[in-house]
């Protein structure tokens, strides 16, 4: 079983991102579970969403405490130390960050595979959201597909079309562009 935690700010689409991953992985034939952090959320405040993927039906119905991977929709959560994103993260796990910086800028986070993609720039180029609030969740999932190999771009496209209410074509195009733009720095010793 693979457990993923998505960090973002209220309004950036962390919950929708968890649903899109679930929809895409479901199309890969996996059993899926996706849920938001249970509580009241405010626009701009740190939020989290979660995904479990498995070849077997997912029986565990608790929150996720030791994820295998992280998606960070907003680099300010790390740069401003607003959230301890690596809390409970397994050694050797991967972290995918939306940032204009390269993965080498984030090696201080620990013994993890770091991947970066400028999902905000890509989203804006595809006119997704506004300059102050780009909608980055679909772009970064293209990078997620490349990084993890868990979902194909075709299934990601179908999942986006099934989940995102407007501009599905632009969202899919942004995901495909991000899939090619991701930069990865493997954790020492993991061979990735």
């Amino acid at each position, binding site marked *: 079983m693979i457990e993923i935690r998505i960090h973002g700010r209220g309004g950036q689409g962390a919950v929708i991102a968890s649903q899109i991953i*679930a929809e895409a992985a479901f199309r890969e034939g996996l059993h*899926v*579970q996706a849920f938001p952090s*249970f509580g009241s959320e405010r626009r701009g405040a740190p939020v989290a969403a979660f995904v479990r993927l498995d070849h077997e039906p997912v029986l565990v*119905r608790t929150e996720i405490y030791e994820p295998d991977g992280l998606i960070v929709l907003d680099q300010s959560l790390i740069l401003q130390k607003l959230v301890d994103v690596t809390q409970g993260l397994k050694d050797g796990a991967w972290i995918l960050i939306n940032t204009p910086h390269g993965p080498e800028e984030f090696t201080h986070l620990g013994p993890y595979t770091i991947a970066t993609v400028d999902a905000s720039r890509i989203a804006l180029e595809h006119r997704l959201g506004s300059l102050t609030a780009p909608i980055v969740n679909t772009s970064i999932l293209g990078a997620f597909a490349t990084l993890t190999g868990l979902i194909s771009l075709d299934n990601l496209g179908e999942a986006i079309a099934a989940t995102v209410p407007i501009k599905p074509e632009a969202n899919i195009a942004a995901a495909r562009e991000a899939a090619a733009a991701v930069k990865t720095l493997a954790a020492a010793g993991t061979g990735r």
Partner: protein
Amino acid sequence: MRMVIKGNGAVAHAVRLARPQVISAYPITPQTSIIEGIASMVAEGKIDARFIKVESEHSALAGCIAAESAGARTFTATSAQGLALMHEVIHWAAGARLPIVLANVNRAMAPGWSIWTDQTDSLSQRDTGWMQVYCQSAQEVVDSVIQAYKVSERVLLPTMVILDAFFLSHTYEDVEVPEPGLVDGFLPPLDLPQKMDLEHPAALGNLVFPDRYMEFRRKMDLAHQVALGVWDEVGREWGELTGRPYGLVEQYRMDDAELVLVTAATTASTARVVIDALRDEGVAAGLLRLRVFRPFPADLIRTILADRKKVVILDRNCSFGHHGIFHQEIKSALYELPAGQQPEMHGVIAGLGGRDVTVEDLRGMLMGVWEGRITKPVTWWNVLEAKGAETGAVAMG
């Protein structure tokens, strides 16, 4: 068709398939997306029903009572304070023998104000005459809502289908949603034996004198006894149609189990992972999951738990001043066992107000009892004890 939906979406799809004629509902977190989903389906013509918007939960159920009295299949959904506000008419629906189906999303009662899960809201309605079914997955939500209509309409009792807030209501998962034709074959249109009828005017809800009231109540109790068999039969029939059979309870790795966890809802799903791990470590552990709680399958539970060594009953609820409610019911069911067949029983109260009940929590409870470290009849799990708690002081910390 297989699809990824959340627990609340599972309710909406099951209601669509059951073809209700009247939906009367009022929103409340974390139930709201159930009736939003249904409202959309009604607006899009996917459900051919009248959707009545009301000003309170009391009126929501009153609307169902009126429509069902006229012979219409009805549905409503609520949670916590909303269910409590319905309480007067909850009794009415059962006493009038109306087979209404209600989805309740388990949410802790206020104060302290909470939107998170526990079972105190639904269990406060235990003695109203409604049947109660607790679900552990969105798949079970779909299947149980459809079965609930069939059982309810056979025995003329209403059913509450119950799902955990957030752990089920807001969790997306892959679910098999049956085709309409399959459900139409399983669930015929409602044909109430008695209903309001302009051709044959009659008065409903009249004064019943002491020489007859008990007879009505006796019939309600007998209907519950009959319903035990009907739930079993309908669960089997559903299994033949879909490959997903259901019983009154579910047993997991119980064959030679000496240590048994008894619990309900999503915690029972998580518990299987723990049972598997304990089995790998050589502990003969098993799970008895409560599904149909009213009517209460006491005889079945007594047979299953006889001769086990230790039983841990996990309640996400409390009857203050006594035990967890499932714990009380299990103890009462086992009283008739001869002393030599009685297991050692321990109640654990955990997960109130949505506090997570983790794999580690479940392991801790089970092994604590198995290894004799938990000896008290009731343990409040993982709780900060108040200073001066022994005096009844209110302040925490």
